[in-house]
């Protein structure tokens, strides 16, 4: 990667002691007009989505339509096999025996919905992504353990290094780190 094509800093990272402090900081950051920022915590924090105004979540819609597709594929496959591809007369029983198709239709619904949903979650989250500039901050390893972080990113239109540092200092974090792009 050419160093010149990207800004030197990924953002500024502030470290907090408790979920409540992180939620307060995220709320203040949003109110100050920053939009490109993210919070990091070892477990999901209920209040954070509200504080960050992060309400868009297409996962449930994706899962619904994947399930619908699965149902159509499952039922269609069985109807096609029994009616068109290889009609088999077994003692005069009806070929279009739809009650017999329900179990497999259901299983296909669940399989499509579950796998599509998980892949969509990973894709929307941009994972797998083995490396990230934040991993270069030594104390960031605590983000999966017992500390809470907030990072204002440099592609935010309001970002200027000094201003962001000052703003974050005002939120009374335990520590502040500059995150460099590599």
């Amino acid at each position, binding site marked *: 990667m050419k160093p010149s094509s990207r800004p030197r800093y990924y953002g500024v990272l502030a470290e907090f*002691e408790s979920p409540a402090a992180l939620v307060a900081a995220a709320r203040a950051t949003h109110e100050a007009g920053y939009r490109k920022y993210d919070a990091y915590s070892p*477990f999901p924090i209920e209040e954070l*989505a509200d504080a*960050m105004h992060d309400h868009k979540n297409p*996962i449930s819609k994706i899962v619904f339509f994947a399930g619908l597709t699965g149902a159509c594929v499952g039922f269609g*496959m069985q109807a096609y096999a029994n009616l068109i591809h290889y009609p088999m007369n077994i003692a005069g029983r009806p070929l279009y025996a739809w009650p017999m198709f329900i179990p497999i239709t259901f299983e296909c619904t669940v*399989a499509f919905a579950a796998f599509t949903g998980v892949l969509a979650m990973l894709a929307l989250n941009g994972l797998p992504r083995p490396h*990230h500039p934040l991993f270069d901050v030594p104390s960031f390893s605590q983000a*999966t353990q*017992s500390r809470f972080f907030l990072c204002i990113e440099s592609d935010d239109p309001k970002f200027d290094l000094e201003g962001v540092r000052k703003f974050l200092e005002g939120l009374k974090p335990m520590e502040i780190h500059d995150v460099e792009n590599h």
Partner: protein
Amino acid sequence: MPASNEFEPSVSPTSRLPVIGPGHTYASINEKISALVLLRGTTLGWLVGFGIAFMIFMMMLGSISYLLYKGVGVWGINNRVGWGFDIINFVWWIGIGHAGTLISAILLLLHQKWRTSINRFAEAMTLFAVACAGLFPVLHLGRPWYAYFLFPYPNTMGMYFPQFRSPLEWDVFAVSTYASVSLVFWYVGLIPDLATLRDRARSWLAKTVYGFFSLGWRGSARHWHRYESIYLLLAGLSTPLVLSVHTIVSFDFAVSIIPGWHATFFPPYFVAGAIYAGFAMVLTLAIPVRWVYGLEDFITDKHLENMGLITLVTGNMVGYAYIMELFYGWYSANEYEQFMVHNRVLGPYWALYVALIVCNIIAPQFLWARRIRRNAWWLFGISMFVSVGMWLERYVIIVVSLHRTFLPSGWGTYAGTFWDWTLYIGTMGFFLTLLFLFIRLLPIISMSEMQMLLPGASGAPQKGEAKP
């Protein structure tokens, strides 16, 4: 509504016994659980346990090798009883697996916080039990190398599809969907914990391997948001899935016309039996693990008591089903059904029927006493009885119904052979081998979910802030 609202992260003040021991912080939960994997190392006890399990697993491979060399004739199955140990063991194992999904999915949807510390473990149990279960029908095919015939695929024979109007084909779809969705559910739950292990590991190898499987998870709030909604949706999908799997397993019997099988109450009866056997197995495994690894703070007496209660309730449902089986046989006014009931209770296999009643109906009645429900070793003993009883139940349903059906000229008897037993016991070794590896290599309790049980984890401001 954001999905995160569906989780209740704090300990409810009204619960009588705590779901987590006192004095824990975010860091202490993390340290204690990850230390089991990263710091404890390979102990002598683990090696001995793993070694024994591995030897039994090798016996299973030996038994399968001989089976493939000679054919299914080495088993006890005959013209009368065409399904013997293979389907008994298949139903037994898959029933055991169902408790894992019940704990991880249904109890999540019902906001049962006590599920948190046992769900990872129970889900692993599900996966390993389904792996054992899947072996039996495939080996029973006789030519297991043609097992792919069971799936629809384009081929030169011009028959792209299997026979979809057969319950055995439904089983193929149900069990393969169940196994793969359970695996994905388990893995999604593991991702944040694998990231924790990546960040705590000291050795290069552990960092790399855990780093690879954690997919670069960094705990971003925007990621958590989507993560929680898919986790909840997976729970919502797994709930009807687990019920459908055992319903379809019961259709293998109920759709036929064999006396004793052809009954409409089979699906709920089988599902209750599956949950009953599964909770007994969770108790059988969780009690020694909690004791060996000192996890009394996380798997508390409340967990044991609740599991005991579920065992008692489902045990009584199964008991009700046994009584209804006798009633249906009599009420059907059908001489074959009536003979089946007579033959089940007083025929050549009467001793198994009595043992079944003792294990499955009488043994769990001790759980009415709170003192016994809260005593780990009593629970352990009762759960052993239940595991044996549930195996006997399938034996009685399958063998006793098949060995004397409509024409007396076709009557016969059945017994498992040496190769039946080595395969059955061998799968227990397979199961335990996987379980020992799981305990050694992965966190057996979900760290991120345990942290959510602490007060203050919801992020709402409060007076006594949890110390980091």
